[in-house]
Structures are given as structure tokens and as C-alpha cells.
């Protein structure tokens, strides 16, 4: 077992301090950490699930467009950043645990540290109706 790159470890330390939901994925797209605010979106706790593969987390919150059409994982900003290593942004709808749709904006950024190697990506989820 190898420890994560320092930039991923520091990202988790940052995410731990934020009140906005944050996902952190490794270069393969595996969700390696999500913070407490993100647990509310996923309806799962990180300490219970541990890491989640891209197909699992990509579908877990049923991303869809305005008309209700499902958005495949590869069109999600975080997956796009994993594939292209560039930032991405998208506004779309997800379903709450109660089945209600709500609009969110997601911004994802690549994590490339001083070793110049792509270590993964981090996404911030912004609930457009959220009052912080």
C-alpha cells in the first residue's frame, strides 16, 4: 500500500474544513474522499463506504438535465477533468434522498503537484439553493 500524494492529502485536509461539498478522486476516477457536506448529497457516509469506483459514485446521485434526461458519468465535470487534466464546470440537477430534483453547479480542478504528475482531481459542489 502506498500513501496518497501530498497534494491529495492536503486536499483532504482542506475539504475537511469546508462547509461546501467536496469530492476528491484519484487519477483513475475512484472517489477517495468526500467531506461531510458531500455526505448529505450522496446520502452515504465516507466512513461507511470508503472509496467508491467512478461508476458507483457517478450514478449515486442520479445526475440529470433540466428535462430529466440522465447525464452519463463521462459528462460530469469531475470525470471530464480526470480524462483531460483541465478544469471543468457544469450546472445540472441531481436527486435528493427524498427524490426531489435540485440544481447544483460543479467545478472541478486537476491536482498537479510539484512532481508535475497528475495526482487526481477535486470538485466543489455548489447547491444553488444552499444558504450558508
Amino acid at each position: 500500500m502506498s500513501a496518497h500524494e501530498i497534494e491529495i492529502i492536503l486536499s483532504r485536509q482542506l475539504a475537511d474544513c469546508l462547509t461546501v461539498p467536496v469530492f476528491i478522486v484519484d487519477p483513475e476516477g475512484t472517489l477517495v474522499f468526500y467531506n461531510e457536506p458531500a455526505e448529505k448529497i450522496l446520502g452515504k457516509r465516507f466512513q461507511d463506504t470508503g472509496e467508491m469506483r467512478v461508476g458507483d459514485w457517478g450514478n449515486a446521485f442520479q445526475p440529470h438535465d433540466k428535462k430529466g434526461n440522465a447525464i452519463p458519468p463521462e459528462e460530469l465535470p469531475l470525470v471530464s477533468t480526470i480524462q483531460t487534466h483541465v478544469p471543468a464546470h457544469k450546472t445540472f440537477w441531481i436527486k435528493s434522498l427524498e427524490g426531489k430534483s435540485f440544481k447544483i453547479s460543479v467545478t472541478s480542478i486537476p491536482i498537479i503537484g510539484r512532481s508535475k504528475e497528475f495526482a487526481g482531481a477535486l470538485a466543489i459542489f455548489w447547491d444553488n439553493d444552499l444558504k450558508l
Partner: protein
Amino acid sequence: MRIKLHGTRGAYPTSSKETRKLGGNTSCIEIIEDNERLILDAGTGILEIDFDSYSTANRIDILLTHLHMDHIQGLGFFKPIFDPNKEIHIWGPGGSSYPLKDRLNKFLSPPLFPVMLRDIPSKLVIHELPNEPFKLGKFLITSKFVCHPGPTVGYRIQVGSKSVAYIPDHEPVLNKAHLFKEDKWISGFDLSHNADLLIHDSQFNREEYEKKVGWGHCTMEIAAELSKRAKAKRLVMFHHDPAHTDKYRSEMFTNFMTAHTFDFPIELAVQGHEIEI
């Protein structure tokens, strides 16, 4: 493998008699295997190295963890740097924007230093650390970035089955009482894993740390927790606060050891001590 502690103090050197026991020189250790040597960090401790013993090779390798002053302030003053017959190889972490040479040049040039880097008499070769382990003579060297402000690495030096991990400046978790539960989320874990000796930051007590979160240093508790989690076989607590007298630091250590039980030896780093593994 023999490890000599030439500088154990953090931040700035001290000459007070109240700090003489643990030592006033800033970070520098020497690792010796037969007639080969490696120098880790170039604080004022580097001035204590006897370059006429163990190895008289013209090549000298210095591995820097980072460029904070307490880790480089001896670099411009140690004897071999003024010897045109010496070839001095300095290894250190690259930065996001500026190469290691440019960053070192800021210190080794006027007005901070009277001589320009290019005018130093010895042959100076500067290397940015590779992302993979590499060998220098008998030493297998692994470096990893660790949590500390600015580009900072820790080292693991291995000869055969013996290994020493050196992480003098390290804040593995920010403002938390414990490390993350999962080993792979621990900065410095790989470097320390099963090391025969871990030389690690331990500058603060808990009260001091609360006022200095993010400064890049940790408590004795965190240093020992990392050592235990990584199954290091022996821990040397390093990077003494220059504001701590020997008496204060010893009391701090005694209190810590009284309150905790560990199944591996822990000691305070003492300047001049030599450890064999």
C-alpha cells in the same frame, strides 16, 4: 549505517548555555556507511562535520529537505565549498515555478551572502530530486513531499536491509489531535514505514501548537503516533524549539513519556550523538 547528529535545533541557532546539552546548531545529520557519507540538510550543524575523516572523497553529496534558512545557513560556510578540488552535489526539491538553482541563488548571493553562486571555488552541481528512488554509492535514497510550507521533502535512506527516515520539519495533520485513521492518508507514512530509525520533527507541546497551526511543525504526540502507525523501530525527536531550554525540553519529554506508553524506544535528539543501526 551510522548516523551522526550535528544539528538538532530548529528555526535559528542558539549559543546559550541553557541549550548546550541538546545542542544549538540547526538541522544537519551525517550518514556514514564504510567510507561513504551523505549529508542531510545544511544548517549550522554542517560546520561540525569532520571532512578529513571517514571519507576524503572529493565528491560530497548534500540532500536538502527544503530551503528554509535553518536548513541551509551552513551551506555558504562549510570548508569544502571553498576548495577547488571538491565537487559538491546539492540535491533538493524542485518548486512549482522556480528551479532549485534559482531559489538557492537567492541565498547564496549578495546581499545575503558576499559571493555569487557562480564564483564559489568548489565545483557546485545542483540537482532537483527525481520522482523515483535513486542511488548514490551504497545509499538508496527515496524522497517524498511532506506537509510543510513551501516545497519540502522527507528522506528515507537505505543500505541493505537497514533504513533511516529523516523528516525534520513536518506537520502531518493540521489542527487535529490525531492522524487520519487510514495509513495512506498520512504524510510521511511511506518514508517511515518499518524504518529502523525515524528522525522526526517534534517541536511543540500541545498548547504551543494550538497557537502555531500551519507553521509546519508538530507535537511530540503526533511524532510518536506517526512512528507507531508506521512501525518505525526507534524514534528520535528532532527540531528543538530554540526558545526551549534543555531543562524545559527535558521536562516536556519526561511529561510526554510519563503520559504515554510505547513499545519502541523514543529519545530526544542530542547534538553530537552518533546512532548505529
